[in-house]
C-alpha cells in the first residue's frame, strides 16, 4: 500500500483517540457511580 505510514497513522489516531476518550468516560463513570446511590442512577 502506497503512503501506508500516513494511512495507518490516520486510522491509529482516529481509533486511538476515540478509544482513549471512551476508556476515560467509562472509568470516570465507575468512579462517580461508586459515590452515588442506586436512587441517583435512574438507569440501574
Amino acid at each position, binding site marked *: *500500500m*502506497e*503512503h*501506508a505510514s*500516513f*494511512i495507518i*497513522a*490516520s*486510522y491509529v*489516531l*482516529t*481509533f486511538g*483517540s*476515540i478509544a482513549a*476518550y*471512551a476508556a476515560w*468516560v*467509562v472509568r*470516570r*463513570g*465507575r468512579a*462517580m*457511580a*461508586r*459515590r*452515588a*446511590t*442506586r*436512587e*441517583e*442512577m435512574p*438507569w*440501574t
Partner: protein
Amino acid sequence: MTPTAAHATTGTPATRRLGAVVAVLLALLVMSGLWWSAEDVVQGSTVRIMYVHVPSIWVAYMAFALTAVCSGAYVSGRSRSVAWDRVAGASAEIGVLFVAVSLVTGSLWGRLTWGTYWVWDARLTSTAFLFITYVGYLAVRRLGGTLRQRARRSSVIALLAVLEIPLVHFSVELWRSLHQEASVANPNARVELDGLMLFTLMLGLATFTALFVWLLLHRQRVILLEDTVADRGLDEAIASRRDEAGAR
C-alpha cells in the same frame, strides 16, 4: 443505598449490546477501509483516509446540532430541566473530539493529495474556527456557578455556535476552495463514488453514528453523577457547618 460493584457503572444491558454492535462495525470498517475497498484511480491508497475523515466531521456536525437542539429545549422549555443541558454538554464534548480527529486526518490526507498539511482556505479555516468555538463552549461550562447558570450561559453560546455549521459545510460553495465539494451531502445531490467505496463510506457513517450514541449515553450519565456528587458535597458541607454551629 450505595450501589453494588456490579451496578457501579454507567452501563446497562442495552448500552452493552450497542457497544458490541459498535465493536463489530468498527472491525468491519477497518477491514473494508484498509483492505476490501479498491484504490482510487487518481489518489491511489490515499482515498482510504476518507473513510475515517468524513464520518468524523459528520459526527461533529451531528453532535453540535444536538447540542443546539438540547440548548433550545432548555431555554424554551417550561420546566427548564438541566437534563437537557447535560445532554448538550456531553454532545459538545464528543463533537470536539471528532472535529479534532477530522482536522488531523484531513491534514494528513491533504499532505498526500494537495501536497501540503494546511492552507488557510475557507473550509479548513472555518473548521478550525468551529473547533475553537466549541473548546471555548466547554471551558465556559466549567467556569462554576449554579447548574442553572451553567445551563443558561452555555445554551446561549450553543445556539449561536451552531450557525457556524452551514458556513463550514457550504464554505466550498461560497468561496473558491482547495477542498473538494462534499462527496455525499452536496447541493447537486450527485454521489460520485464507485460501489465498494460508497459502501465503505456509508459503513463509516453508520459506525461513527452508533459510536456517538454509545458515547453520548455514557457521558451524559457521567455528567449527571458529577453534578449529583458535587451537589451532595455541598449538602454535607452545610450539614457540617450546622453541626459546628450547634456544638458551640
